[in-house]
């Protein structure tokens, strides 16, 4: 019982600390996303803190069940702990996530009233993208042809032919120095973060958007969406799978990342190809009415079922071993 209570306390400690720390980190990250050379680095602002809180609170609610499961690996206990976990899972997915959505809407409507202003690249800095170097000699101003424009010295440094040109450059999303920098504003910054962001297989932004969209879409849709929560919570079954805790921890981390990745569009290209072939299927058509990604829904349910069966079998085997001893 004590361990079950500890689990509940840990749940709230992880959640609160995770949201606080995550919000701080995310605020720094979003400021760096918008950083432009020469304009100074800004650490915190109220608006960016609120935006970060909205994002991180959802992320923490997705991650809290795997985090508590991770804690449980080192602090296993009996059935009461399992019951406590089920209650907390229900609390998270049935109550806290929808409540957080409403709270975030309130924050957004009341505190993020001003439209985000676009920042333009500064002048007097060299920005290299592939074989072109841009040096804006002037600030971006509205041009008669429409859109924002600035004069630039453009240096082409291809092996075959290099030249120096001076011409007006329009600020468009397809401009190399903009597209190469995404998601950052400044290509100089994106080059130093390049490898790190590409290796993160989970698109948390997509997960948060999907959750909010589904909540707004109605109760039935959200019920089908809960397959994601079911899969994440079912990972609890791994906490006692092997005798070596390290194995359990690593597998838990891996499977959590896999579930998060699949639900954030990691397998979309392959699933789209499969869906194109089965869209006339009755079951698929039914599921497609209530969920955006029917195959992901099926995958989540199957995984949850598999883990549940695994947990039951493991428990029986371990109980049997213990009785023998």
């Amino acid at each position: 019982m004590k361990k079950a209570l500890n689990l509940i306390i840990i749940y709230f400690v992880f959640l609160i600390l995770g949201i606080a720390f995550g919000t701080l980190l995310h605020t720094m990250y979003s400021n760096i996303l918008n950083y432009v050379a020469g304009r100074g680095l800004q650490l915190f602002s109220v608006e960016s803190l609120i935006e970060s809180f909205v994002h991180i609170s959802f992320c923490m609610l997705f991650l809290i069940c795997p985090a508590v499961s991770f804690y449980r690996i080192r602090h296993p206990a009996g059935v009461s702990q399992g019951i406590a976990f089920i209650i907390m899972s229900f609390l998270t997915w049935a109550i806290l996530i929808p409540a957080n959505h409403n709270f975030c809407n309130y924050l957004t409507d009341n505190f993020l009233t001003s439209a985000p202003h676009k920042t333009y690249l500064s002048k007097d800095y060299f920005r290299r993208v592939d074989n072109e170097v841009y040096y804006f000699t002037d600030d971006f101003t509205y041009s008669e042809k429409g859109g924002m424009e600035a004069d630039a010295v453009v240096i082409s440094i291809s092996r075959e032919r290099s030249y120096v040109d001076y011409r007006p450059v329009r600020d468009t999303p397809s401009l190399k120095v903009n597209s190469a920098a995404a998601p950052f504003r400044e290509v100089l910054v994106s080059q130093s973060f390049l490898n790190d962001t590409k290796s993160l297989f989970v698109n948390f932004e997509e997960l948060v958007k999907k959750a909010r969209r589904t909540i707004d879409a109605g109760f039935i849709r959200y019920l089908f969406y809960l397959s994601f929560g079911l899969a994440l919570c079912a990972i609890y079954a791994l906490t006692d799978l092997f005798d070596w805790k390290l194995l359990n921890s690593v597998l838990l981390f891996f499977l959590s990342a896999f579930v998060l990745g699949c639900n954030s569009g990691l397998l979309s290209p392959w699933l789209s190809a499969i869906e194109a072939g089965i869209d006339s299927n009755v079951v698929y058509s039914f599921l497609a009415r209530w969920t955006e990604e029917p195959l992901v829904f099926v995958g989540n349910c199957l995984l949850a079922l598999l883990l549940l069966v695994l947990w039951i079998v493991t428990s029986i085997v371990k109980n049997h071993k213990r009785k023998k001893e």
Partner: protein
Amino acid sequence: MKKLLGLLSIFLGLALVICLCASIFSKVPADVPDSSRFLFKLLTGFEYYIKYLPPIMMTGFVVSCSVYFGQNAVGSASRFSAAMFARFRHVMIAVIIIAFLLTLATEVFGVLIGRQKDRIINRPKLVNDYIKVGRTLYDNGYYDRAMRYADGALKLDPKSKDAAELMDAADVAVNRIRESNIRIKLYESVENAEKVDRVKIDPSQIAEVYQYYLKSKEAFEKKEWFNAHYYAEVGIGLASPKDPNLEGLKKLATTSWNNLTEYHNMEKNEDQMIFDRKYEGYLALVENDDLRAYYIFTELYNSSREFQSDPDIVFYRKIAENRINEKCFFMDETLELETFEDANDIYFSYKYSDGSQDVIYFKGVTTVAGTGKSIQYLRNLSICSLDKEGKLFRTMNVPYAKVLPISVESLSSMTKSLMGLDESVKSVPYIMLKSINRDGPTDQSLPEYTYYQKMEETYPEHLIFAISYDDFLLLETSMHNPGIIPLTTLFKLLSRAVKYGFSAEVFESVFLNRVFYPFWMVVVFLLLATFAWNNRIGIDQYFKFWWSLVFPVFFFVGTVFYRLCMFVFKLMNYAVLASTGLSGAIIGAFVLYSACLVATSVFFLARRSRI
């Protein structure tokens, strides 16, 4: 600790074997010669290993610690136990070694392996370039330099037929010139050739020299002075110092020459003609028409072997050449430069005190060896000059420019104030834009100016960059990627980058990332040690073989974890920069990571076990 390091070494060894096996299936570029394919694949294997070394190390460390702690968990029933302090000591030593190895791998070995692979790919290209340049130099009469390039090509590829042929041809040509550089005095021969083996006499060579002696004598008797002189000169070039025909050949050469000149200058005294020409050259020097003076004296110098020892011609030609060297350079100086450039695609900008600025770009830079980087050649130099509103008013392009440092003391105070130079600047780059033909005024290369606004148009043939020469040398590096700039250069650039069009914040953050990387790795690995303790193997458990099948999952998790750690690390460095500014960032980062280290140490020491 030995056990810990031993387990870790086994893990690292296994990972190395896997990386080397994986490299067997790697693609080898077509440019790599067959003899180097194995070496290239081996280097690729090491490259994979270094690239994935951090997550490999993390995985190995956690597994090793987990097993090690599991078998040595006694004595930590309470927090901050003595046994835990002992473990902490061992872990810290291991972690410091790991951080050192990881830093070496990223800063040193990765770069070295990359360079070695480039060398293998470029070697055939380099051999071809050496031969091509050597041939160009040979065709233009620079046999000594051609021989050096042929020698370089042979060192890279001893079996190269083209290189061997070039070497032979250049060798013969060099020897001919050397041996024909013998000063001839009337009725007395003074040899100034290089040392030859005076003992060795080749009978076939003597026979050939004798043939030329006979031909020269025959022509002499027929009063064909040109032929007589020519055959005599060829014979002298082939003869060794001990050749019995040498004296005869020399007499024939000098006598026929004297007759030749006397015959053609019967109308005017020879000395008077030479004096007239020298006077013309001297007058040009006085009138500061150095180029004309140089060409007059060069023409005289080249016109006769005797004039090459004429003290007036030699002396005043040298003066004219020195004066020209201050304003322009010779085109033949640039013949082989493109192949051996030290850096490519250099760009920077600088502002004048009135707000106008220049944007500089050059495609390649070559330093003259042995000059301590004080003589450089810039290829395809372009300068865009902008007014204080940022509008272009002039561009300049030149195929080659020569750069030298000049002392700021040679500049007027007005020039210095217009350039906005700091008091600490001692020398600035002086750029020569004009290049001329060494032997005659036939062709020259001038800078191309284009004006875009109505203003007074000038076309200077030399420029001064308004920056310190030391800064100019610093900028000749990969400014677009501060991650690969040598650390000492990067440190010097921190305070100067923004002056030349580069973001100080980006440079500073990259510097912090690189300098504090080992510190951060110590913190992360200490955290992993704590994780390993919490997930240690049971005291009664033995490591099961099938558990190793899960190691690929470990590695995947380790890779993601490492990327996450680096992401957080870089974010924290940006946060430090934003909080403390550029000047306090290093101290701020040191304080932050020291605090992290203390926190993780306390966290580790607070671990306990139930036994």
